[in-house]
């Protein structure tokens, strides 16, 4: 086919696509289709207003969240052990500012304070029962972490480029991260492809190495991630998005504060020094105009070369009430299989030396449900968004898709409440 023909064919295809889309939107009136098709053939008229354009206002956010884990059942812990688990208070500030017509900058600072005991290692029941026993660490008070993230977006005709730089600091931990990404819309902004890369470097300097001489003094790890996705508008009320994320980690991936019970003695947690993870996420959004509600359905499949697999399905309903209120009930189901080297405890050591009994590597399922309420109001020339939310998360080996022989006694359940305020000015 000659180049001219190819161009004509492409134009015809584009025209037909435009026509089909407008047909859906216009209820199929022949006359309207004809008018629309020829009007959109005019230069510049097929471009659609981009809802995701550069913001024109300044935004300031403050959010407070309190994360509190349920106390561990006394029957699951070693006699005399701590039962109170983690409580975290999280304060997040964010400021977003437009810079000229096509840039914006965002600065986010988060500060967290944590206290409580965490699972340390798991032993067989000393009384010979089937259920293993969790040994907890002692409770700590007032550990703190601060996160700072600087990000920027550059908006062009049909595309957005973004970059971010962040660091995170704790008394025994430091992490730097950076990301670069972009997205581009095609097909009259009905299709958006996006991609990005990320990098982080984490440095850990464990405490109390004098008490626990086998703890390393200083270790680090690196993470590299790649991300690619495509979003497609399907008619006026529906959008789907699917994305793939790959992450490669290398370095010290063990947890210096955890142990595993191997051949009757607790040895330091030991995990492979590389990990390759894949996540495939698909999201569906459907708006129901008559009742002014939007359904969100998300599904994620995750797997890695530690042989873990997980499935997450999340449903949320965004209901607008009286124009200015929104109520968002949500539900999430999660199930994972265990890492190949995981065991609650080891009767004999593995030949590769790995040992980890962290509940996060164990097989389990989790159910969570939540509700969020948000409203928007205007005073003087300021626009305010206020929201509050509550979430309950419960994990249990019985909730897993596959049957689990031995439940890790350290599985967590928690409540999360949060309140946020956004000011546009």
């Amino acid at each position, binding site marked *: 086919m000659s180049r001219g023909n190819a161009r004509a064919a492409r134009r015809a295809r584009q025209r037909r696509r435009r026509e089909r889309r407008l047909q859906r939107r216009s*209820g199929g009136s022949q*006359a309207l289709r004809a008018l629309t098709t020829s009007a959109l053939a005019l230069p510049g008229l097929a471009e659609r207003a981009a809802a995701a354009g550069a913001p024109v206002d300044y935004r300031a956010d403050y959010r407070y969240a309190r994360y509190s884990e349920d106390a561990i059942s006394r029957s699951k812990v070693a006699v005399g052990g701590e039962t109170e688990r983690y409580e975290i208070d999280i304060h997040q500030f964010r400021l977003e500012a437009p810079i000229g017509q096509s840039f914006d900058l965002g600065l986010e600072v988060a500060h967290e304070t944590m206290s409580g005991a965490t699972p340390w290692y798991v032993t067989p029941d000393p009384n010979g029962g089937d259920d293993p026993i969790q040994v907890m*660490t002692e409770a700590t008070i007032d550990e703190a972490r601060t996160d700072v993230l600087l990000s920027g977006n550059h908006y062009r005709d049909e595309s957005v480029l973004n970059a971010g730089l962040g660091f995170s600091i704790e008394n025994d931990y430091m992490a730097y*991260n950076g990301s670069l990404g972009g997205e581009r819309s095609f097909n009259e902004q009905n299709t958006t492809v996006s991609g990005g890369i990320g990098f982080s470097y984490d440095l850990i300097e464990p405490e109390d190495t004098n008490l626990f001489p086998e703890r390393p003094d200083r270790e680090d790890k690196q993470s590299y991630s790649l*991300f690619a996705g495509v979003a497609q508008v399907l008619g006026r009320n529906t959008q789907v998005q699917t994305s793939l994320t790959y992450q490669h980690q290398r370095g010290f991936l063990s947890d210096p504060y955890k142990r595993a019970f191997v051949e009757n003695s607790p040895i330091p947690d030991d995990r492979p020094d590389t990990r390759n993870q894949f996540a495939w996420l698909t999201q569906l959004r459907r708006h129901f105009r008559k009742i002014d509600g939007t359904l969100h359905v998300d599904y994620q499949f995750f797997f890695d070369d530690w042989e873990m697999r997980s499935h997450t399905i999340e449903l949320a309903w965004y209901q607008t009430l009286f124009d200015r209120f929104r109520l968002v009930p949500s539900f999430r189901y999660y199930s994972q299989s265990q890492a190949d080297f995981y065991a609650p405890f080891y009767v004999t050591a593995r030949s590769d030396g790995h040992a980890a009994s962290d509940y996060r590597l164990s097989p389990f399922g989790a159910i969570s449900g939540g509700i969020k309420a948000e409203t928007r109001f205007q005073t003087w020339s300021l626009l305010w968004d206020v929201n509050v939310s509550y979430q309950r998360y419960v994990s249990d080996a019985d909730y897993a898709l596959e049957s689990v022989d031995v439940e890790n006694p350290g599985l967590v359940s928690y409540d*999360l409440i*949060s309140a946020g305020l956004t000011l546009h000015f």
Partner: protein
Amino acid sequence: MPPTPHRFRFKAMGCPCSLQLFAPSAREARALATLARGEITRLEHKYSRYRDDSLASRINASAGDPAGVAIDAETEALLDHADTLHHESGGRFDPTSGVLRRAWNFRSGRLPEQGEIDALLPRIGWTRLQRAPRRLALPVAGMELDFGGFVKEYAADRAVALLQRARCFAGLVDLGGDLAVAGPQPDGRPWTVGVRDVRQPERAALRVELFRGGIATSGDYERGISVDGVRYGHLLDPRNGWPIESLASATVLAERCLIAGSASTLALLQGEGAVAWLDALGLPHVRQHRDGRIETRLDEGLSAPRRRSLRPRRRARPRRRAAPGAQPGRGSRRSAPARSR
């Protein structure tokens, strides 16, 4: 930032025009206004038949010359659109019918002789235009092509497209009552647009809300000629040269001002069939009858805002959630737990 838009008023295309633009500063608003006005002026200079140096005048001056004149892609697309309107109106929409004004002098209050009309009809006929790629010829000397029936609406859409390209999504372009908006106001509220009352043109009969796209009105409510109690209006049928009796006005909302304007024009040209044609078309609209009755059909789409939740903000990097431990991989950063003593 003040919650009111920057306003600019000017005259273009023979009517009072205005821009309303939200921008961080007056300086940026002025820059945006210059951009929009520049585009409107460009189109006025290109397609006005009142300017000797316009393309429209050159086309009309070439009438009778079989070689015709060279035209660009934009003009071709406008002619294609006019062709669609001609076809969809069953021949009632005809950009060559302007010459009928020579017979119909509405100020004189007298009806033209049939002979005067008949003398003009050979110079009318959209289908007689000779088109070749990038060329147009008017075959008969004295033939005239008038872009006035759609260029104003196109200019409003073009101005909005330029504003959007300059990342202005809260702006309104009003060209003598034909409007296009670049998006809703910054707080998400729609623009409200008055629909002129045909009996008291200085008043708004009602106000309609516009979130996106455009709105345009076609009306035939000026005085016309009355003879023996019969009104002869300004809306002329190019097929016989006589007026069409139709609605007093039709105001249509559509995804583009040009679509709205084309729809309102074609509706009126349907004469008695205007109401049925509008109902079948399926666009939100307001129609005013000659007896002053106003009918609104505004519940058909377009007025509903696009929900923000439909377009989640995408991030290249998944945001670190506050809740730890829920998923492997995400919680691993959290695995530095309390120290043991």
